[in-house]
C-alpha cells in the first residue's frame, strides 16, 4: 500500500481505527498480566521454576487436576450430549426454564457453588450419605473434585453442543430418515459427525474450566490438592516467591495442551465443510 492509499483507508474506516485502539486495552491487559508473571519468574528466579518441574507434590497436583477435569468433562459429554440434542431439536413447556438452569453455574459465585455441593455431598449430606454406602466418598476425595469441576463447567459444554446441533439443518436428518435410517442411526451417522467439532471444542472449554476451578473445590475437597489449591496454599505459606513458579508452570502446561487440542480440532473434518 502506498502512503496515500493507506491514508485513504484510514479516513474511510476511522471508526474501526478508533475501536481497535480502544479494544486493544483488553488484549493488552490480558497479555501483560500473564507475561509479567512469566518474565518476573524467568528473570528473578529461573532456578525455582526448574525445581518446581521436578517437585513431586507439584507434579502430583497437576496430574490430579488434569485427570479430574478430564473425568468431569467425560461425564459432561456422556450426560450432556443427549440433553443438548433434545434442547436443539424440540420445543416443550419447560424448555426455557431448563435453559436458564443450565446457565446458573455461570452466574452464581463459586463459593456458593462450593457450599451447595458440600451440603449435598458431604458424608452426612442427603446424596453423600447414600453414595458412601456404595463406596463413593466425595469429601476430601477425587470424586469431590470431579463433582465441583462438573458443576462449574458443564454449562460450557452444553451450550457449545446445543449450538452445534442447532447448526445442522433438520432436513439432513429428515432425508436420512426417508432413506431408511431410524432415529438412532440418523443421530450417529448424520447429526453427531456434523456436530463433532462443536462438541470437541465445547469439551476443551469445559476441561479448561475444570482445570482452572478453585473456589468450589476447596469447600468439598481441599485435599487432595489440585494445582490451583496448591498455588493458593503455597501463597499463604511462602508468598509470591513460593507460589509463582507453580503458577507459571501450570500456565505453560495448559497453554501447550490447548494449542495442540485446537490444532487437532481444526484439522478434524475441516476440509469438506
Amino acid at each position: 500500500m502506498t502512503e496515500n492509499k493507506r491514508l485513504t483507508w484510514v479516513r474511510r474506516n476511522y471508526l474501526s481505527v478508533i475501536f481497535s485502539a480502544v479494544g486493544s486495552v483488553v488484549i493488552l491487559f490480558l497479555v501483560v498480566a500473564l507475561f509479567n508473571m512469566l518474565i518476573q519468574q524467568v528473570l528473578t528466579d529461573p532456578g525455582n521454576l526448574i525445581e518446581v518441574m521436578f517437585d513431586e507434590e507439584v507434579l502430583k497436583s497437576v496430574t490430579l487436576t488434569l485427570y479430574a477435569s478430564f473425568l468431569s468433562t467425560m461425564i459432561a459429554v456422556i450426560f450432556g450430549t443427549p440433553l443438548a440434542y433434545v434442547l436443539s431439536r424440540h420445543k416443550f413447556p419447560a424448555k426455557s426454564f431448563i435453559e436458564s438452569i443450565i446457565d446458573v453455574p455461570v452466574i452464581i459465585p463459586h463459593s456458593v457453588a462450593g457450599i451447595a455441593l458440600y451440603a449435598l455431598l458431604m458424608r452426612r449430606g442427603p446424596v453423600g450419605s447414600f453414595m458412601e454406602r456404595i463406596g463413593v466418598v466425595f469429601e476430601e476425595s477425587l470424586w469431590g473434585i470431579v463433582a465441583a469441576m462438573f458443576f462449574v463447567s458443564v454449562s460450557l459444554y452444553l451450550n457449545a453442543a446445543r449450538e452445534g446441533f442447532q447448526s445442522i439443518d433438520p432436513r439432513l436428518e429428515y432425508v436420512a430418515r426417508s432413506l431408511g435410517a431410524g432415529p438412532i442411526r440418523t443421530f450417529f451417522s448424520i447429526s453427531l459427525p456434523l456436530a463433532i467439532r462443536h462438541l470437541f471444542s465445547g469439551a476443551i472449554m469445559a476441561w479448561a474450566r475444570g482445570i482452572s476451578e478453585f473456589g468450589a473445590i476447596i469447600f468439598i475437597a481441599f485435599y487432595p490438592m489440585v494445582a490451583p489449591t496448591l498455588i493458593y496454599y503455597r501463597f499463604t505459606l511462602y508468598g509470591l516467591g513460593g507460589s509463582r513458579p507453580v503458577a507459571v508452570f501450570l500456565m505453560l502446561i495448559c497453554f501447550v495442551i490447548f494449542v495442540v487440542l485446537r490444532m487437532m480440532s481444526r484439522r478434524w473434518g475441516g476440509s469438506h465443510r
Partner: protein
Amino acid sequence: MGRVASIILENVTYILEDFSIRNVSLKVREGEYFVLLGPTGSGKTLLLELIAGFHVPDEGRIILNGVDVTYTPPEKRNVGFVYQDYSLFPHMTVEENVAFGLRVRRLPENEIKRQVKEMMNLVRISHLSNRYPSTLSGGEQQRVAIARALAINPDVLLLDEPLSALDPGTREDLREELKRIHEARNVTTIHVTHDRVEAILLADRIGLIINGEMIQVGSPEELFSKPLNEKAARFLGVENILQGRIRLNRGGMVVIEAGDLEIHAITKIEEGEVYVFIRPESIIISRKPLRSSARNIFQGRIVELTNLGPLVSVKLDNGLKALITRQSAEDMRLKLGDMVYASFKAASVHVSRRAR
C-alpha cells in the same frame, strides 16, 4: 424396479402457529408424474413432508400403495425425498451419499457397489464419486440428491422445488433429465414447484395449491384453459401459454403457428410441436399499430378487462392476455369490444418442446 405405487391423501389437515394445511385430499395414480403447483408459502413443501412422514397430520389419512401410513415413521415408508437445497450429507463423498440408504438396509457390499454405480450412471455423475458435496455445482449436487433418493428403489419419489435453485441453463437440462429418469424408472412422483412452465412441461396432472388448500386438480390443458375459480385464474391465468408448431426456421429465428397467430420467436429448437410462453407484462397494448422493433403485432378485440389494483389485465379475442398499468388503460380509454393492437418482441417469447 421399484413397485409402482399410488399416493392417496384423505382430508389431511396440519395446523402450525402461523400456517396450516386444511382438508387436502388427493389421489396420485401409479407411475404418474404429479406436479403440485402453487405460489411460495402455499404449503407445498409441508404437504410433501407430511407424505414423507417428517410430520404427522392433525387429521386425515395418508395411504401409500394401499397401506395407511399416517402414523408410520419415515424410515418405514420407502419414500425418496429431494429438497430444493439438495441437503446432501456434507461429511460424505458423493458415492457415500448415494450408498447411504443401501448401507442402512445392510445390503452386501458388492451389491451396494453395483447399485450405486448403476444409479450414478443413470443421473450421469460417475465421474464425481469421490468428491465432497461442497465442491460440486448446484446442478451436480441435485443429480446426487436424485441418485441418492432413487438408490433405495423408492415406492414414490417426492421432489421439493428440485429445479428452483439452479441457473436457467442447468434448470432446463435437469428438467429434461427428470423426464428421462421418470420414463426409465416409472416411479410415482410428486414434484412441487411454483413455476408454471415447469409444471406444464413435466406433469401428467397438476394439483393447484394456494394457502394450504387444494384448489384444483387436472391435466395441464384443463387447468390452464379452465381455471376453476378466481384464485386459480389469478395464479394460472397471468401467463400466455399457447400450443403451436414451428413452421419456418431461419437460423434461430422461427415462426410458430399457434392457432390463428403466427408468432416470431428466438429459440434453439428447430422444428416440431412446441409450447409458447409470453409474459403478459411483455405485451404492449395500443390503439394504432406500433412502429417499433417488435416482431409480433396482432390486432384483437377486447373481451375481458380485469382490474387488479395498480394493473389492469386485458384479454383479447385472439387469446392473448396483457398486463398494463391502470394509468395507460385510462389514457387509452379502453373498454370491452374495442379493437386494439398487441405487440411484443420475438425475444420475449419463450419456446419449449411439447413432446409426450
